[in-house]
């Protein structure tokens, strides 16, 4: 369980004070796929980054599985990050490492008792044949698959995705959504997805928070369409997306 309790984040710069998040309280259950929606600058990334302590609340608390992050020491934080995977908008791969080396990287940082092999992780995202290539030789969608494989190899309890499809085109977005969906089913983990793309949340998440100007507007239960988006004809999707109000 991930719990935000009255979390406020204020960024202090030289000549301005900026409230990125104000008084956010919400809780995400274990195993849930949770979306955080909002326009650019709404505070989505800041909220997400608090879950693995990349960002610290100015006030309020973030609690992960009974551990309140505000008062844990460095070693404990490391072990928390060890159980959390992260997927980035710009993939953040090391361009001087091969696909296999990139995916293996998290295993070199910590001792993980249960983890996937590089082959298993790459097989899962459908990139087994690319393992000796370098990221510069891959398409955007393939790079993001590498990013996902790298996050999954440690078998994380929590997977954080920050705009995982925002650098990709529509078709590739759907592919990546399917990979994340499959991962959620297969690995029994909590997924938190930040995106401005409502369709991604619709396809992937059970609930979603909507942020605006650092404030939590509402939390919605996402009504899942049973129909698999990717399998349906384009015109049907066009009617659904464009025709509904």
């Amino acid at each position: 369980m991930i719990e935000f309790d009255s979390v406020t984040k204020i960024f202090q710069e030289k000549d301005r004070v900026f409230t990125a998040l104000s008084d956010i309280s919400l809780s995400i259950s274990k195993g849930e796929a949770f979306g955080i929606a909002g326009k650019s600058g709404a505070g989505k990334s800041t909220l997400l980054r608090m879950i693995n302590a990349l960002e610290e609340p100015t006030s309020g608390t973030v609690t992960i599985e009974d551990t309140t992050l505000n008062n844990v020491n460095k070693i404990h934080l490391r072990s928390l990050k060890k159980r959390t995977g992260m997927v980035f908008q710009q993939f953040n791969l090391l361009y001087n490492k091969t696909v296999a080396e990139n995916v293996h990287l998290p295993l070199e940082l910590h001792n993980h008792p249960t983890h996937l092999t590089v082959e298993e992780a790459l097989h899962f995202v459908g990139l087994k044949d690319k393992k000796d290539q370098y990221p510069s030789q891959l398409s955007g969608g393939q790079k993001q698959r590498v990013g996902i494989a790298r996050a999954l190899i440690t078998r994380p309890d929590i997977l954080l995705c920050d705009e995982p499809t925002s650098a990709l085109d529509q078709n590739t977005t759907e592919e990546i959504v399917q990979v994340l969906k499959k991962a959620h089913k297969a690995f029994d983990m909590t997924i938190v997805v930040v995106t401005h793309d409502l369709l991604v949340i619709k396809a992937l998440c059970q609930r979603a928070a909507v942020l605006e100007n650092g404030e939590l507007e509402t939390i919605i239960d996402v009504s899942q369409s049973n129909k698999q988006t990717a399998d349906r004809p384009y015109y049907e999707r066009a009617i659904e997306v464009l025709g509904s109000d």
Partner: protein
Amino acid sequence: MIETINLYFEHVLEYLPRMLESLGETGIMLFFAILAAILLGIPVGTLLFLTSSGNPMEHHLLNRLVNTLVNIIRSFPFLLLVVAMQPFIRQIYGRATGDPIAASFPMIVIAIALYARFVEQSLNDIPKAIIETAQSMGATTWQLVWKFLYVEARSSLVIGFTTAVISFVSYSTIMGVVGGGGIGDFAIRYGYQRYETDIMYTAIVLIILLVGLFQWLGLKVAKILDKR
């Protein structure tokens, strides 16, 4: 014409043993400078990067201190640095003049400061997202440096190193003033002071070839290492 060429080769042959000896002295000075650049220049440059603001080991005082030190050494006219270091070298090495090892001390100092700057610059060029990724994985600072930063910076580290070594060659040519010898000193002594112009130009061409070789080798290695 042929006679002139023959004469030239005879002349060079006559000076060859002394020329090779000078090259050996240059080699000794470069060796120490290169060793210092790698063993100390890289850590100092990394420290400069890590302690600068917004980075994982942010520390204003330490950063300011090391930064100032590097600036002072780099802005010191090298000839004056050599002279200023004499008492210090005598203290720890026993003698300050007359051999290439004594002459290596100022080379070491400038090598550390010069390459540290290049290393800092190389690390600055890495996208901040890489640091964030390492932190999101819970990497220690040590792991960040070795498994992320040096990996992504490696080809620019090599290019900076090449540029630094070429500067070391240049610095080494004036070490004759403290009897350090070297190929530069050779060119000055035989060519400039004893009017053996052909010998001087031969030595200069040799230095240019040496620099060219470093340049070529450095770019080649950097290219092999760069997969971006």
